[in-house]
């Protein structure tokens, strides 16, 4: 037990933040164009969909779960939005349908896990596969084209130089951070992940909490699907492959513990930005995408290693 947090403890807590700042400085020195307003806007744009998914994933992981199905859900809801977004309905229709589609997948996951008592990995592996099939089914396995001008403009536009995609992300961040830290519900998600049995004895409806975290992840996957179709201007049934992994990476790198109960929203923000900055920076430096994957893998392992080491030193 320590009375005061030592320098090393503080360092390990904010380690990922330090790494992020250092990386930005190094990239800015190597390529001044990295910090041009255009590129910064670009980074925000690139980070937005992964960021939205990561915040859904954050709730699931903090409550002690795990969701493999969000990538497939993005593709599925993206197709739904594309089919309804050809100009035949007002834009709000594809949006609502995409959200409902995502929510439905999330609830199915949550019910299977919290009531059916299936391990999260197995349940969401199942929905990941089945929902991908669903996306292929409703699109006949072909890209859905003909997305209306108005729908395309959603992702293409910007307000005061900030890409509209990034605005969606910022709104999601604000709402999710607020819910996680300021509401009774948020505290209960942490309690469930910390010790589900103790939470139950304390009168918390743990079944409902767990279902709801998967529902949030699904809902945000639906939003991502809607935005993704607008961004790429077609509905691709094979899109968003392995997006769940990027979302998990952002959480883990940002200090969300895979065993549940621990994690802060600002960590997830940094995690998301870090991944995007690595990809963007290496792109600017002209490093091949093959190397980018290797670097990303190393970052994940190193970040968690530092995290684990930092914690064991504290005990």
């Amino acid at each position, binding site marked *: *037990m*320590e*009375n*005061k947090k*030592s320098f*090393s403890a503080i360092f390990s807590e904010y380690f990922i933040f330090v790494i992020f700042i250092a990386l930005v400085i190094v990239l800015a020195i190597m390529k001044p164009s990295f910090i041009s307003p255009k590129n910064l806007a670009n980074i925000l744009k690139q980070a937005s969909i992964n960021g939205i998914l990561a915040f859904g994933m954050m709730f699931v992981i903090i409550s002690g779960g795990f969701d493999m199905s969000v990538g497939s859900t993005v593709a599925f809801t993206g197709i739904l939005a594309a089919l309804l977004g050809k100009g035949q309905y007002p834009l709000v229709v594809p949006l609502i349908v995409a959200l409902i589609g995502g929510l439905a997948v999330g609830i199915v996951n949550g019910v299977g896990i919290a009531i059916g008592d299936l391990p999260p990995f197995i349940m969401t592996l199942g929905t990941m596969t089945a929902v991908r099939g669903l996306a292929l089914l409703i699109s006949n396995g072909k890209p859905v084209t003909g997305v209306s001008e108005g729908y395309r403009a959603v992702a293409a536009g910007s307000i005061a130089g900030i890409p509209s995609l990034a605005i969606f992300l910022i709104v999601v961040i604000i709402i999710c951070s607020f819910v996680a*830290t*300021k*509401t*009774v519900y*948020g*505290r*209960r998600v*942490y*309690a469930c*992940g*910390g*010790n589900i*049995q*103790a*939470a*139950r*004895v*304390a*009168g*918390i*409806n743990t079944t409902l909490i767990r279902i709801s975290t998967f529902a949030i992840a699904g809902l945000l996957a639906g939003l991502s699907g809607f935005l993704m179709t607008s961004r790429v201007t077609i509905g691709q049934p094979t899109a968003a492959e392995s997006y769940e992994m990027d979302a998990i990476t952002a959480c883990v790198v940002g200090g969300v*513990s895979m*065993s*549940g*109960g*621990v994690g802060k929203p600002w960590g997830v923000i940094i995690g998301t930005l870090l991944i995007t900055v690595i990809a963007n920076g290496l792109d600017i430096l002209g490093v091949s995408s093959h190397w980018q994957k290797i670097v990303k893998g190393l970052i994940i392992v190193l970040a968690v290693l530092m995290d684990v080491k930092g914690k064991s*030193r*504290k*005990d």
Partner: protein
Amino acid sequence: MEYILEMKNISKTFPGVKALNGVELKVKPGEVHALMGENGAGKSTLMKILMGIYTMDDGGEILFNGQPYHVHNPKEAMDTGVAMIHQELNPILDMTVYENIFVGREIRKNGIVDKRAEIEEAKKLIADSGLHVSPTETLRHLTVAQCQLIEIIKAISVNAKVIVMDEPTAAITDREVELLFGHIRKLKAQGVAIIYISHRMDEIFAICDSVTVYRDGTYIGCGTTKELDEAALIKMMVGREITDVFPKLDAQIGEVMFEAKHITRADGKVKDVSISVRKGEILGIGGLVGAGRSELVEGIFGMHRLSGGEVYVKGRKVRTRTPSDMIKEGVALVTEDRKVTGLNLRGTVNDNISMVAIRKALVNGLYSQGKARKLSQEYIEKLKIKTPSGDQIVNNLSGGNQQKIVIAKWLLNDPDVIIMDEPTRGIDVGAKRDIYLLIGSLVQQGKAVILISSEIPELMGVCDRIAVMAEGHLSGEITRENFSQETIMTLASDIAV
């Protein structure tokens, strides 16, 4: 050579805290040596140094068999002849008995595990120990006591000269304790030295030959159990006289506050049990481990399905489907195992204290960290919880302080009926006394308390009335003027009526 193990001038410094300050421990072959002290006294730290998990500070010396002893991990310690049986056993539940005995030092033939030889050897070891299990049984199907004996068998099979037992009786029944003591005596006769860590005084005097006491990381003294008595030991551990081990405060007993009638659990672990407790009264529930005491209160509290029975709070019938039903009626349950059902170990003290009554930490409907901190600070002071701050992670606190946090989280909700399941298990004398005083002040405030305990002296010291359970049913009830150890024991062993 008089001692098998000599640890001299051992210190251990962690960042910001000195856990051990030049302590010593000298153990003779063939003796059972108790290592005592309150939580945080440094016992576990010393044992971790002995097992090679921690490295001691410079200047200390360890001699084993008269030779300098340097190990870097538990395996090296075992190879040298020192084995440890941990408080929380960690057997591999899905592996068989023989696999558990030989895990990490498998018998090999041509580089391949020789399963047949392992089973043969395990069979011999099991037979020697008087245990009746098959070597090919999986551990999941054994009782905690049997798993513990397997650990002991493992220690014997590596030819350990010194075996450390950390709270070996924390999870086993009285009958099994006798069995364990039988094994300890056998080991003694073979010249094996045992370092015995326990908070239970009766055990220390029943099985140990000598005692070493630490307090706050310093060496206080060493003596034989013949020359020391309980009072002297407590004084050494606490640093002051505790004249009254079970303080009982006077309280006004009023009308019936809580009544459970004909409680029967769907899984048959509790059969037709009725209890009631009055305002200002402390009702004890006694019985052997496995008698269904925890099962009874967990059933009442909505953690398990009931197939029959009714619960009345202040004369009104209430629903018992989920814990939140009971919490709404002002009932609290301090569960038996704080690590499993009591605490969010990864959360802070503030998180845990505000877990039940989180609505009290709201400002304009939103969770306020400042308010939660203030509320928990109040209880940290009230219950004398020793923690650097409310932001400390609960896992880093000692058992007694963790227990107080579980109690604090319920008290914050201001309950009328408080059920406590083994609230003093595994915590030190000083913290126990704090909890007895707290229970006393609760009933003085007009609350009703139900106290489950396996320690009969504790029940007799604190309660106004004791209900005794055996094999899932109620075998009798005794009022304070008729309390006697014999009556309670007789009722507790009242098998099959």
